[in-house]
């Protein structure tokens, strides 16, 4: 199997901060907005280098989304950032009217997504945001897997003309993708080729899927790992090409079951290639306080649980 080297734990939000700085250097239209979370969103370097293009909005996310839309009309490329819950659920109607329906060129920078936000607990851990954002016509939804890919995705989002929801996380996680690979919106990345089963994963779960594949290789199970870095628009062609080869699959995401990547891929398979599918997700519940690692384990989102799901998926093969 393809070997991935963890070059050292890095948070994906720092990948966003680095990508934002790079995008800002490449294009003077890029501006950054935050609702009192400059440090958490790693916007400090951008703010330092481009003080006039850094806009502090105070703790008023609804207004921030509207201001971002207005700035976009004047030709700016605004990245409006907050914690995932506060830039999705809290401002859903603002995003719907001002960004999606208005089709303004706003990038929603969604940090601390999922259960791995950790100790702050359920008020801050959104496991519903992919569902919310997927439901909006025209919204691009991206959930990159590590620091390098988040940086590249941020640069790609700045180049793309239209609304983008860019989801990333808080904790340090393995950084393993090629730092020189540009990000292609709408492309699924085959991380490891396999023949017996496919694991579709996004965000932090891509590394867990690779670890699971490695463990299963020793048992003689050949696992294909596909990184669904862009959830919308989904790379249906890549999804179908993979399952047509492996004939069974697992979908793994740091998100609840309703409206997530699992249901999305289930819909594609049901319509095109009805095949067994197993799911790794948070189910239908809220998060709670804990370390990211403990929560991943408790909510069934780690490599060990993916291994079990793969065994179930393989057993169901017809």
């Amino acid at each position, binding site marked *: 199997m393809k070997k991935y080297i963890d070059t050292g734990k890095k948070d994906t939000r720092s990948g966003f901060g680095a990508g934002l700085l790079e995008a800002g250097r490449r294009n003077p239209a890029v*501006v950054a907005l935050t609702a009192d979370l400059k440090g958490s969103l790693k916007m400090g370097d951008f703010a330092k280098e481009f003080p006039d293009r850094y806009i502090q909005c105070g703790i008023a996310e609804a207004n921030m989304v509207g*201001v971002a839309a*207005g*700035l976009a009309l*004047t*030709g700016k490329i605004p990245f409006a950032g907050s914690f995932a819950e506060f830039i999705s659920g809290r401002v859903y109607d603002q995003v719907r009217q*001002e960004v999606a329906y208005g*089709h303004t060129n706003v990038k929603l920078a969604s940090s601390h997504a999922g259960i791995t936000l950790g100790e702050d607990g359920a008020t801050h851990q959104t496991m519903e945001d992919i569902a919310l954002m997927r439901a909006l016509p025209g919204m691009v939804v991206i959930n990159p897997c590590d620091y390098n890919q988040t940086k590249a995705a941020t640069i790609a989002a700045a180049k793309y003309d239209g609304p983008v929801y860019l989801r990333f996380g808080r904790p340090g996680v393995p950084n393993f993708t090629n730092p020189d690979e540009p990000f292609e919106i709408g492309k699924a990345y085959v991380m490891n080729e396999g023949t017996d089963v496919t694991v579709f994963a996004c965000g932090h779960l891509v590394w867990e899927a690779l670890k699971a594949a490695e463990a299963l290789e020793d048992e003689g199970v050949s696992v294909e790992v596909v990184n669904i870095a862009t959830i919308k628009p989904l790379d249906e062609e890549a999804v179908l090409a993979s399952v047509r080869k492996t004939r069974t699959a697992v979908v793994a995401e740091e998100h609840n079951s309703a409206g997530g990547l699992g249901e999305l891929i289930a819909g594609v398979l049901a319509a095109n290639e009805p095949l067994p599918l197993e799911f790794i997700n948070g189910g239908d519940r809220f998060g709670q306080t804990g370390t990211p690692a403990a929560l991943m384990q408790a909510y069934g989102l780690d490599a060990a649980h993916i291994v079990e799901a793969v065994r179930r998926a393989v057993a169901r093969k017809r």
Partner: protein
Amino acid sequence: MYTDIQLKNISTQVRRDIVRMVSQAGSGHPGGSMSSADFLTFLFFEEMNHDPATWDRSAKGFDAFILSAGHTSPVYYSLLARTGYFPVPELGEFRHYGSRLQGHPSVDKGLPGVFQPSGSLGQGLSAAAGIALGKKLDGDPGRVFVMCGDGESEEGQIWEAGIFAAHHGLDNLVAMTDWNNQQIDGTVESVGGLGDLEAKWKAFGWEVIVADGHDFDAIRAAFAKARELDGKGRPVMILFHTDMGHGVDFMSGTCAWHGKAPSADQCAEALWQLGETPLGDY
């Protein structure tokens, strides 16, 4: 420059358009459209630097207008048509299937003159502040105008935007509140208890002008004052005292006509009361 008599003719025609559009569509929001018709007529015909021929959503080099209280789309559409953004007869397509004149303002069918969708209340002031900030970043001298409802000002986001615009010194932003003291469920005081709007906006760091929204001399003076305040460090709020349904006695001063269409007979009565104008109906 338009005389008060010319402006009065235009706003009367705008009211005729409003009543006819809503009556023909069988739905829509005439009350707030008619209360804001006079000061918005002045804004579109006299005050705003805009050119329908070169308009686009970027607002570069000209003034922008955002209708935050999106339900008052009839007054907006009438003024856009009457100032040349699209053919006046298109007003007859208001609320029809496939029309560019959606129930609430929309951009996805490409109606010229509309910068942003509105209808979900409380959001337009934020969008206007964003355009104003974008203009400042670009050194663009254009101003941004936005109209909010008084009932709409019960939305918390209005006040978020109020804090933001003052904090960032958006002195190229001119907001107007159509202070007709009516909303769907009754008077604003009975429903939301907004209290002293003038004191509230002053406390938020805005320049506040209060004027009679149906007297063209007062409207002219209010906009002249706002123009003087352009570039002086603070956003401007003009609170226009108005009368819901103004111009037609049975629609006036009540919340009953917030979102109700006049019947054919009521429409005829309203048009008779308003009287004909040299501009003519669509």
